[in-house]
């Protein structure tokens, strides 16, 4: 395979043996979409139980399995693989390379991920059920997991290995395979954001792997890393987890930053404002993300100096984040703006991610966090940054590049329906959760006191509206793959970037001869 001019082999063999970056990108994206639906179904189980006070549908134990699995599936199965899929498709095309640098490893990391999820999801069907200690896996609670425990840990190891390989591949590709003239500071912002994301992944995934391995030895060999009775400390795990976990949230959002930058520039018909500042802002966010982790742990009883440090360092992240938001706004300023579906999603991102940023800033203030922590206010915060943040960013990317991938234009009217329903319902779903949290509803509970009924009902209605709207997305993609009006090479009427110089659909092999970049 891979010789000049050859197309792919036909049928299933193609997908099992392909080392083509576009095929692998497609597999990642399809995998991610399936996981998005699976994780979404779990969310609907959670929201259905929370529609009314009282337990109507599930046991508390199963409820906890659902919250845990929902989070693991969405983080590691939906958002991260989607961005890896986009990286696979787009980075070689953006930098003028023929493929990813390490194609066989690329394929291996995809199948590792698929196997990891087979393992993780199968825990739902074993006696004792899936892990139920929350995606944060805090001991000692997580050590009460039954047979699912080693399976979940092994699955996490595999996901981590897969992510690290993906990250190495991105770095090696970008460092070595840029077309002549494509200097780093000419590189499109999506590729830039992924380069920095890849370094974050390589830095923190091993730390997480170490942490869960210590859980494993505590479980089987009584090593007592996290057991006070044996001289350990349960809070140590929280430090290790969040040293991984906070950069992890940026691993999910940075690629979306890159996407939104490209989309806003395209549909404002104007180059991005402050390109270099955008690159430096991503880099500073990435750096700061390593020194803020304990803002997730203000209630564990840290010394005063620790609380002050983590409050102040966390607030600092708002500065580069603000720079990005202002630069996006300035990109639209004196532009010539039109509202195609990718732009609609990017604009919703701009507004709603910013709301999540504001609540993040509030959470950063340790004294106030004593009230907010572990309530629905936090749930609202991270869903604003993750759903209309990371997920809308990914959807903007799909609507932006889908014609390039398939060679067909998609159904614009349907895409707009998908957008408006998603944008409205996502707020119906998550905005009331701010109220619930402030009014005192803890997170991760299957049943609640009566005064929380009303806003929970609203939230559940929003959840079903949002969930059902995503079926339009699936339908639209299927329709677009099957056919549609032919897309031109440029697709949109203002383009920037090498991907728009090749025909649509992009040929199986692009840039076997490196393009010239002026």
């Amino acid at each position: 395979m891979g010789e000049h001019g050859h197309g792919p082999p036909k049928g299933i063999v193609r997908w099992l043996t392909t080392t083509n970056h576009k095929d692998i990108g497609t597999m990642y994206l399809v995998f991610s979409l399936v996981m998005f639906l699976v994780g979404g179904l779990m969310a609907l189980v959670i929201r259905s139980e929370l529609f009314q006070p009282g337990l109507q549908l599930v046991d508390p134990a199963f409820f906890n399995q659902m919250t845990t699995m929902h989070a693991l599936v969405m983080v590691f199965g939906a958002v991260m693989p989607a961005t890896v899929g986009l990286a696979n498709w787009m980075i070689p095309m953006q930098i003028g390379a023929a493929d990813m640098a390490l194609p066989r490893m690329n394929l291996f990391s995809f199948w590792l991920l698929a196997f990891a999820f087979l393992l993780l999801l199968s825990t739902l069907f074993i006696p004792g059920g899936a892990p139920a200690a929350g995606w944060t896996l805090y001991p000692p609670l997580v050590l009460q997991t039954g047979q699912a425990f080693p399976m979940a840990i092994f699955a996490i190891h595999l996901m981590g290995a897969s992510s690290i390989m993906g990250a190495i591949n991105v770095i090696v590709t970008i460092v070595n395979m840029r077309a002549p003239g494509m200097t780093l500071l000419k590189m499109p912002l999506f590729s830039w954001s992924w380069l920095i994301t890849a370094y974050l992944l390589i830095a923190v995934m091993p730390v997480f792997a170490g942490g869960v391995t210590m859980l494993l030895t505590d479980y089987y060999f009584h090593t007592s890393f996290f057991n006070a009775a044996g001289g350990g400390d349960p809070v140590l795990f929280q430090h290790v987890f969040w040293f991984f976990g906070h950069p992890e949230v940026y691993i999910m959002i940075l690629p979306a930053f890159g996407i939104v930058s490209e989309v806003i520039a395209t549909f404002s018909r104007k180059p991005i404002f402050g390109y270099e500042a955008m690159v430096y802002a991503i880099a500073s966010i990435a750096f700061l993300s390593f020194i803020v982790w304990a803002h997730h742990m203000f209630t564990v009883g840290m010394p005063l100096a620790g609380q002050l440090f983590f409050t102040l360092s966390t607030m600092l992240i708002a500065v580069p984040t603000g720079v990005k938001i202002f630069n996006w706004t300035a990109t639209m300023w004196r532009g010539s703006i039109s509202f195609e579906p990718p732009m609609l999603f990017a604009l919703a991102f701009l507004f709603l991610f910013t709301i999540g940023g504001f609540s993040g800033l509030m959470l950063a203030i340790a004294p106030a966090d004593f009230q907010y922590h572990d309530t629905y206010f936090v749930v609202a915060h991270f869903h604003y940054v993750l759903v209309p943040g990371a997920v809308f960013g990914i959807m903007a990317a799909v609507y932006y590049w889908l014609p390039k991938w398939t060679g067909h234009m998609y159904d614009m009217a349907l895409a707009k329906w998908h957008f408006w329903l998603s944008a409205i319902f996502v707020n119906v779903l998550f905005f009331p959760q701010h109220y619930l949290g402030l009014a005192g509803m803890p997170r991760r509970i299957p049943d609640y006191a009566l005064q929380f009924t009303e806003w929970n009902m609203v939230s559940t209605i929003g959840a079903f509206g949002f969930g059902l709207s995503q079926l339009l997305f699936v339908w639209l993609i299927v329709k677009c793959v099957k056919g549609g009006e032919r897309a031109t090479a440029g697709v949109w009427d203002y383009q920037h970037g090498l991907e728009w110089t090749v025909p649509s659909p992009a040929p199986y092999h692009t840039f076997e001869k490196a393009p010239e970049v002026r």
Partner: protein
Amino acid sequence: MSIAKRMLMRSAVAGVLAALATMPAHAGWDLLNMPKGVSELSREIYDMHMIMLWICTVIAVFTFGAMIWAMVRFRKSKGAVADGKMLHNARLEAAWTIVPVLILIGMAIPSVEKLIKIEDTSGSELTIKVTGYQWQWHYEYLGTGVSFFSRLARDSDAARQKRSGIDPRSVEHYLLNVDKPLVVPTGTKIRMLLTANDVIHAWWVPDFGMKRDAIPGFINEMWISVDEDKPGTYRGQCAELCGADHGFMPIVVDAKPPAEFRAWLEQQMAAAAGSRLAATE
């Protein structure tokens, strides 16, 4: 719309309305903000929260205003032509880096002050040790021999069983009631020592402002103080996932005027001494 579709819509709307109609008149629609609470700390925290909320609101008005202005003013459909030379502007970019830094410093100062106060447990007049168990709380009035467990009230426990057939609305303080509440004096600085027996729990009564983790093998500290003029019953919940019944280990605190509290404590001490005596005989 076809008739079938319209009927479907109508029954969906009717279903939602019926669900909404079953709610009591004094429903939770107006629960939108953090409670001010009944202690100095909770008010400080509330103030901090409101400062942050207003600062964020003002910033939001400006940034969202600029975004909306751009979207309205510079649309292609209105004939806007892109200014392709607008690539960067050092002064502007410096301004929107420095101004946020100044705002952040403005936010940081009061939060540091408040934090120092919150962490200062000195000068307390009473110490209560709180231990989290799966799934109940244990309270111990240090130095008095008084201690007891506190768990979800029977009627809530019956109603919360899956498909119990009992309407939660018929239960008083559903899920927020216990068999034996913690009793504290008002107008007194109380030091709470928090720990746990099995997994991590967190002790939280929103009206007191604070929440802190109860961690097995370690002892955490915090202080609370209920306003002198606000005796009453205050309710909270465990705030750290602690297993299947995490949602079912409420906290209820009965704040009594100091004299009443002393009477209660003496009576408890006598009872405790009596039962110790009985046990040794």
